[in-house]
Every structure is written in structure tokens, then in C-alpha cells.
């Protein structure tokens, strides 16, 4: 794990809460959560569905706004930002990887990777080059002209990772990145994440699969909208004895 100092804080979450209104009932999806993530950490957020891990992910990704509490990203308080400012933050500092890839159909891999740059200040003559570099980084330098329907699931997710990396974000957010992939392909994506982590990328990954979470260096467990444990993987009760995960059915 990297050195923990005040300067290296990427994410600082202080008593963050999010409540949804479902009909007349209010659901406390997140209750006063505190979390710090430093540069070049590799965090897995685990929990059952309804535990609040997706809500936390959305808030960390500036896709959603909290009802209470503070969220600082790279020292900037995002709590009261407008939709346009948040869009700019997402564009510059956050890379998303989704479970179902979310590639634009009918558009080549290169164009897909270029997409975030369209909304940035990067001039158009540099976009193509950057997108190509990002694709090479994920090992798809020879697939630039392929359209999503010509790519395998693993390749699609690699394109998505390239897209997440193209604007050189300080934070890579992955929401069940292997949820739609078989185990062999999943391992490939996890290898890619490992490589990115070693290159210095900060990664936060949401998953309910223990064998995927096993690749992270820090495990955050959630239940009922609260963090119930936050430990380095060596100290986590499930992973402490062996690095290979016991089963995907995770007892909490």
C-alpha cells in the first residue's frame, strides 16, 4: 500500500447520507458514511444488493448528490456543485467502468474511447492519438476500427476501460466490472486492473464476488447503508488466511 499522507488523499467522505423516496416511504440508502481513499489504493467495496454500495459508488462518481455530509475529491468539495460542474469533474477526474460495458453501438472502438475527450478541452487533432494510446494500454491496439458487435465480451470491457482511462482520471470507478463476463475473461480484466494499479492508478471497485474482490488491496464491507468493516486485505477475516477466495457466496 502506498504511503498515507494528507497530500495523497483522493477521496474524503464525511458523514455522507443519501435517502431515496419510494412512494411515501424513505429509504436510507447511505447513512453517515466516512471514507478516505488515498492515491494508488485498490479498494473493493463489497456488500449484498441493497447494502448501499451502488449508492456510494454513484456519489463517489459525482453521478448523484448526497442529502447530507461532505464529499471532497482531490481536495475540492463537490457537495454543492451544479450539474454542469459535476459533469466537468466526471470528465476530468473520474473514469467509469460499468457492468454492461455501455459502449455506443455502430461506432468503432476508437470512437468509443474518444467520447470523453469530445466533452473536454482537448483539441480534436489530439483526441485520436490519445484514444489510440489508451486502446494500446489495454492491449487492443489492433482492434481500433472494430465495432462493439465485432468484439468479444472481454474486449468490450477492455474498450470500456480504455475509455475510462483516456482522460487520465485520478480515480477509476468500476461497478461490477466482471458481472457480465465468464471466469476466464474476468481473470483477464482483473489482470488488467492489477497492471493499472501497479502503474499507479487509484481504483475503487464495487463487487459482490469474493474472488474478484480478492484482487484488491483493501476491502470495504457495507450493510444497510453503513460501512461495517474497512480493512487491508491481509487483515480481512475472509482473506486473511489464503489469498485465494473460498467461494463467491460471501458470508457477512
Amino acid at each position, binding site marked *: 500500500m502506498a504511503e498515507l499522507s494528507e497530500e495523497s488523499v483522493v477521496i474524503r467522505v464525511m458523514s455522507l447520507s443519501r435517502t431515496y423516496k419510494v412512494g411515501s416511504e424513505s429509504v436510507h440508502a447511505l447513512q453517515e458514511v466516512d471514507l478516505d481513499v488515498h492515491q494508488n489504493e485498490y479498494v473493493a467495496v463489497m456488500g449484498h444488493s441493497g447494502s448501499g454500495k451502488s449508492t456510494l459508488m454513484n456519489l463517489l462518481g459525482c*453521478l448523484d448528490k448526497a442529502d447530507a455530509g461532505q464529499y471532497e475529491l482531490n481536495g475540492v468539495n463537490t457537495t454543492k456543485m451544479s450539474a*454542469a460542474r459535476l*459533469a466537468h469533474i466526471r470528465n476530468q477526474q473520474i473514469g467509469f467502468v460499468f457492468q454492461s460495458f455501455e459502449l455506443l453501438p455502430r461506432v468503432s472502438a476508437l470512437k468509443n474511447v474518444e467520447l470523453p475527450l469530445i*466533452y473536454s478541452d482537448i483539441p480534436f487533432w489530439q483526441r485520436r492519438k490519445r484514444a489510440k494510446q489508451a486502446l494500446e494500454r489495454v492491449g487492443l491496439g489492433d482492434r481500433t476500427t472494430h465495432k462493439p458487435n465485432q468484439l468479444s465480451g472481454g474486449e468490450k470491457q477492455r474498450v470500456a476501460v480504455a475509455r475510462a482511462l483516456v482522460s487520465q482520471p485520478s480515480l477509476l470507478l468500476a461497478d461490477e466490472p466482471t458481472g457480465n463476463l465468464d471466469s476466464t475473461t474476468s481473470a483477464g480484466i482483473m489482470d488488467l486492473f492489477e497492471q493499472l494499479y501497479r502503474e499507479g492508478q487509484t481504483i475503487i471497485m464495487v463487487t459482490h464476488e469474493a474472488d474478484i474482490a480478492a484482487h484488491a488491496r483493501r476491502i470495504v464491507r457495507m450493510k444497510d447503508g453503513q460501512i461495517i468493516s474497512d480493512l487491508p486485505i491481509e487483515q480481512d477475516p475472509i482473506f486473511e488466511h489464503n489469498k485465494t477466495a473460498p467461494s463467491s457466496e460471501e458470508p457477512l
Partner: protein
Amino acid sequence: MRHLFWAPLLFIRLVIQSALLALNQIWVNKTRSILTTLGIIIGVASVSAVIAAMDGMNNKIMENFEIFGTKKIFMWPHRPETGSKKNMDWWQIRFRTEQFEGMTEHCPSVEYKSFVSGGNNLPARFAEKSVESVRMTGVEATWFKIENRAIIMGRPFSHLDESQGRKVCIISKKLRDKLNMDRECTGNTILIGHSTFLVIGLLEDKPSMMFGNMGGDNYEVYIPYRTAQKMGDRWFRVMASCKSAQVAGDAKAEIQFFLRRTRRIKPGDPDTFRVHLMESEVKKVKEVMGMISAVAYGIVSISLLVGGIGIMNIMLVSVSERTREIGLRKAVGAKPSAILTQFLVEAVVLCLIGGLIGVALGHGLASLISKFGPLMEDTKIPAWAILLSFGFAGSVGIIFGMFPAIKAARLNPIDALRHE
């Protein structure tokens, strides 16, 4: 400052990007795009075709008025509906020549005046050739100036012709040809009714008009008014012309004042005559044409409106179809304004393409309409109408694209990404 300087450039870049994206979308959904723009195509085509037809018709009518003369004034006796002269005999209220003596001197806005006799239809003969019926009208020499009819050969009526009531005539080219006369027909005599007349001049035929020929179908013979009067054609009207169309109203007032005096109408009594301006006729026709045009434009605008609703409908479909895409774009950093611009530009591009095809179609329609008849022969889309059509199509895109675009811009990225 730097931000202010770059802002318009950034906006232009956004619009160009959106336009390229829109063209791509339109190309990908070819069939749907064509069906969607059909409404706009038909709308713009009908708007431009109707404008072309209306504009052409308007010009044609005005042109005809110009030929007919917009400076003309007509006068005829009229029995008033009230007052002591209500039940007067027609004969008693007829015009008398002495009532018009000195009219042009007393009415400064009036240029010429001419008596015009009631006219007779009579048979005519020259050598072996005869015509069943010619229209013989007694007029003064000034009549040709009022009517703008050129004497292309020979001479007009002279002072002597008029004062002595000589049996001279000016005939139209049409009659000369019908009677098989020489090209230089002046100096010959022709028999009209039971009298012989010396042909002194040849008159250019009336230019063809759209409303039939306004009497131009007749074989025209003009004799001095005095001659007609001597031959018993005692009933007459008076025609005059004003110095310019601008003083037509003044001329009318002057004539009314003059005639009330010469016809000894007591103050407060109604006029026993009518003075009618060609100019007011033109104004009325212009008004009517304007009204017809407005109604026509209104009706065809509805088709454009319907087209716009079609655009809105398909854009709404497009927004809900591409909800996930919108969500993704937002997630990777598209601002609400960028999404708004994207969908708005797509609607506008769609409409402008429709407008382009529509104008082309309208052009085709206009050339088709121009073959319907002489009234329509000037039908062609004026440049301003092309610009207007484009502007209209673009506005339809903005107006009807706005709602779907706002809907797209307001989508919550999380909900959008979760959308199935």
C-alpha cells in the same frame, strides 16, 4: 477575459460536433429520418409553392392593372338613394357636355378628360370584305392618352375633326387585318352601318388580359365624339386621368366639387353622379389578394406545424431510445447544455434537410402550377421565400426539438444508465 474570448468558439465547436453527430444519426436511421422529415418536406414544399403561386398571381394582376392604367377616373350619372332627386328620370340626370367645360382647368390634379359615347355595334365593310359587327365608340383625342393606346400609324383626331364632327375613324389593327386592308390602311374609306368613314389612324391592339379581354375581343372603331353625337349616340360617360396615382384622391375631390357646381346641386343634397378611381380599385384588389394570401399561408403553415409535431414525436422516441447513451454521455462528462445542443441540433438538421428537399419539391410544384393558365404563368419561388422557408423549417426544428432536447438534458445520469 480569455474565457469570454473563447466562449463563442467553444459554442461553435459544440454545434459543429453536434451537427456531425446528428448527420451520423440521421444516416444510421435513414428510413425513419425520411419518414420523419416527410411532414417538413410537404410543409415547406406547399408553403413555397403557395407563396410562388400567390406572388406570381399578384404580380400578374398588378401588371394587368398597369396596362389597364391605374390613373384612370370614371364618371357616370347616378340617381341618389335619398333627397329630392331620388325619383328623377334617368334622362333628367344625364350628363350634358356643357357641365364638363373647363374641367381640366378647374381641377389641377386632372390631366385629361374625354367624353365616351355609349357606343354601337354595327356591321362594317371594306371592298369585298365585311364584318358582322364592329364596336363604334365616339371619343375625344385625349381618350387615347387616358387609355394609353398608341396610334401606330396615321394621326389622332384633329381639332377640326372634333369640332365639325367629321366622319373620320381610327381602327384597330385587328379590324384592318379582318377587312383585308393594306398594311397602310389610312386614307381608305370603310362603310360602317350606313355611313362611310375615312380611316385616319391605326390603333395598336389591346394587350391581352387575364380577365377575358375586357372588350378587346371586339373589332374597335373610334370616331370623334362630336360625330357620334351627331349620329344620335347621345348617351355618354366621361373618362379622365389624374396626373399621377398619388393625386388620385385629390382629383376625385376636385371633380366632385366641380361637377356639383356645374350640375347645380344644392349644398347638403346628395351627388347625382359617381366618380370612380381605378386606383381605389387597385387598392381593393390588393387588399383582397393580401387576404387570400394570408389565408393560404395560414392553411399551408398548418402542414408545417403538423410536420413539426412529427419531428417532436420522433425526437421524443429518439430520446427514450437513446436514454442509456445519454446516461453514458453524461457519465463521461457531457454537460446538460451539450446534450441539449446535441438533440436540438439534430432536430434542426433534420428540419433543414427537410426544408432543402421541400424547396426543391416546391420549385417543381411551382413550375407545374405555372402551366395552369396565363394567370399563373409567372409562378416561381422568389428568393425571399426560399430563405423564409428555410428559416421556417429551422424554427420548426428549434421549437419542436426544444421539448425533447430539454427532456434529454434533464435526464438523471443514474436513471438513464439503468434504463432498459
